[in-house]
């Protein structure tokens, strides 16, 4: 297997100008992950600043309703309101170790942009965030949040004006400003070494979950569920369980249904292709052009997915399912009412699948859902969709 590959997937499909930056990034990453000073500082930020570890909450109401034992991994309680900060603190600290003076990032739902703005503010690095112009309107509150945190938000008006175009814009900025800039990619996508770096920084979710469930239940869960857009929260919780006898389920954006063509389910309905630096599954036409995607959750509205997920799909180690907008919205309301926890619409996809999967478990069955983010950012949108009544 070539380096930077997950089975046949991954690789480095980028313009030559970027190769030196990827090589530098890989060398730095190999160095800092062995550096005790880096680990010490990152642990401090994760614990004292971000609020790790996050709880693994037993949901007594939902468990009673569903007839199995349901736990939520509460990444919604991480500072910033989503799992994204695990990665941005790690990469921002790495950028400091590399001597970079500026961070750039892309964002879809705005959560990664906010998490980058937070990390930049905390570590004293200026931040510019590229965001599709459509997304800046869908997620206006997060735009304001980023600006409040001192970041500059650059609306991207090319292409479909969504996440994929924001990634293109960030790559263009990076290629022109390699010396001083670190591109803080927000998901386990893109060229090597990004998928690995993001997975490693997010694996703290799964490592904690594993320890917490063993303490609580004395055994591993039967099933772990996470939503998959680019796939970073999912790979973060799955990775420490890959070698165990635990069912892993990734839940993609089914949008208006896989048959409608309006969805973001690249693993369930896509084909193999190269996109934004990596070989993976891709929603594409016959010529290899990425298709427009749709999801009620902006963070899942993306035509491709991290290459490690592509490998895990092919090997059968992880099962990938799709959940529609309607099912996700139902789960959004149900979790809010039964447990008093408003999930991000992205995370609501995982909750929706859990509602389905619970049927297959008996009353002692243990189901863990990665609640990757909180839903405050989505409340206004959901109110608009339903005439103000949740």
């Amino acid at each position, binding site marked *: 297997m*070539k380096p930077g590959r997950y089975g046949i997937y991954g*690789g*480095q*499909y*980028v*313009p*030559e*100008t970027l*190769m*030196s*930056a990827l090589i530098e990034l890989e060398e730095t990453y190999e160095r800092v992950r062995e550096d005790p000073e880096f680990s010490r500082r990152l642990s401090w930020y994760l614990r004292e600043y971000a609020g790790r570890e996050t709880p693994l909450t037993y949901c007594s109401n939902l468990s009673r309703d569903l007839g199995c034992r349901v736990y939520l991994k509460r990444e919604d309680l991480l500072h910033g309101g989503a799992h994204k900060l695990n990665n941005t603190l790690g990469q921002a600290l790495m950028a400091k170790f590399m001597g970079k003076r500026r961070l750039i990032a892309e964002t879809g739902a705005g959560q990664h942009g906010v998490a980058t703005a937070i990390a930049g503010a905390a570590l004293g690095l200026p931040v510019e965030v590229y965001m599709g112009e459509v997304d800046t309107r869908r997620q206006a509150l997060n735009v304001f949040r980023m600006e409040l945190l001192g970041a500059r938000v650059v609306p991207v008006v*090319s*292409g479909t004006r969504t996440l*994929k*175009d924001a990634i*293109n814009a960030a*790559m*263009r900025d990076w*290629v*022109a*400003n*390699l010396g001083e800039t670190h591109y803080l990619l927000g998901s386990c996508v893109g060229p090597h070494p990004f998928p690995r770096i993001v997975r490693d920084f997010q694996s703290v979710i799964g490592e904690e979950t594993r320890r917490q469930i063993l303490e609580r239940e004395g055994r591993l869960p039967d099933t772990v569920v996470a939503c998959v857009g680019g796939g970073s929260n999912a790979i973060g919780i799955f990775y420490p369980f890959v070698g165990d006898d635990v069912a892993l389920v990734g839940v993609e954006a089914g949008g208006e249904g896989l048959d409608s063509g309006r969805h973001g389910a690249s693993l369930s309905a896509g084909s193999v*292709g*190269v*996109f*934004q*630096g990596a*070989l993976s599954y*891709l929603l*594409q036409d*016959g*010529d*290899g*052009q*990425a298709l427009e995607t749709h999801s009620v959750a902006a963070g899942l509205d993306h035509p491709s997915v991290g290459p490690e997920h592509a490998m895990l799909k092919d090997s059968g180690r992880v099962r990938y399912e799709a959940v529609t907008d309607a099912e996700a919205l139902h789960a959004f309301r149900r979790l809010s009412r039964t447990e008093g926890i408003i999930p991000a619409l992205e995370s609501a996809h995982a909750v929706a699948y859990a509602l389905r999967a619970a049927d297959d478990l008996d009353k002692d069955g243990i189901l863990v859902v990665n609640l990757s983010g909180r839903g405050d950012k989505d409340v206004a949108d959901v109110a608009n969709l339903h005439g103000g009544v949740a």
Partner: protein
Amino acid sequence: MSRIAGLFARKSPVFIGFTVAGDPGIEASLRVAKAMIDAGADLLEIAVPYADPVADGPVIERAHVRALRAGTTADDVFALVRRIRGYAPALPLVLFTYYNIIHRRGPDRFFAEAAASGADGVLIVDLPVEESDEVAPYAARHGIDRIALIAPTTSPERQHTILSGASGFVYLISLEGVTGERDHLPPGLAGLVGAVREKTGLPLAVGFGVSRPEHVQTVVAAGANGVIVGSALVRLIEEHAGDEAGMQDALRAAIATLRRGLVPDPEPDIP
């Protein structure tokens, strides 16, 4: 001798024009290519339109969008190349493409169709040497030159590896950044040309940012065998949208002006 090798054997420096196939429309695109050839382009780089052209700046990205909106498919691109080949039988033609177009079609089929349409070379902008074994055997099988890219950020060791698989000519990226017009070319250009010159006998052509006659002079003075002009020509297509005669006039005038930056060069003795 291939058309590319033949061109550089009898003429240096040369003027290379870039256009996106299907911009501003499929038929109009043929007329753009003919106008560029009539105006003195020695080699044409024809881009396959792609929705996510990350190596390109805004001017060329909009050309990709125009071509895709006009419905241009990879089939259309090969048909266009075939017609350009018919118009200019001796002119070297290079396809400029992002890799997923090739991956989706399958490299064997892509290079077969490229050869059948009359293309001489293929330049894959997002396929670095680490991944190039995916296409190398097919390019060789169908007699297509693989045009290699070297950037200012490419280390000497990488230059070596890249050049070992290159053929036709070498595309030197003048600057760190995406395609697009610039006021000045970077001062290190002569150093880059000189360093690569020591490692290869292949002709060297310089692109990215080259948009004025004085840039052309700078590139030639740096010792390159060719200049590649893209955005400065593509911009004229956008500016003259809806006025095809004016567009062709503007392209011819721009190429004539830019060509003046090439050293005085004798009339080629085309056999």
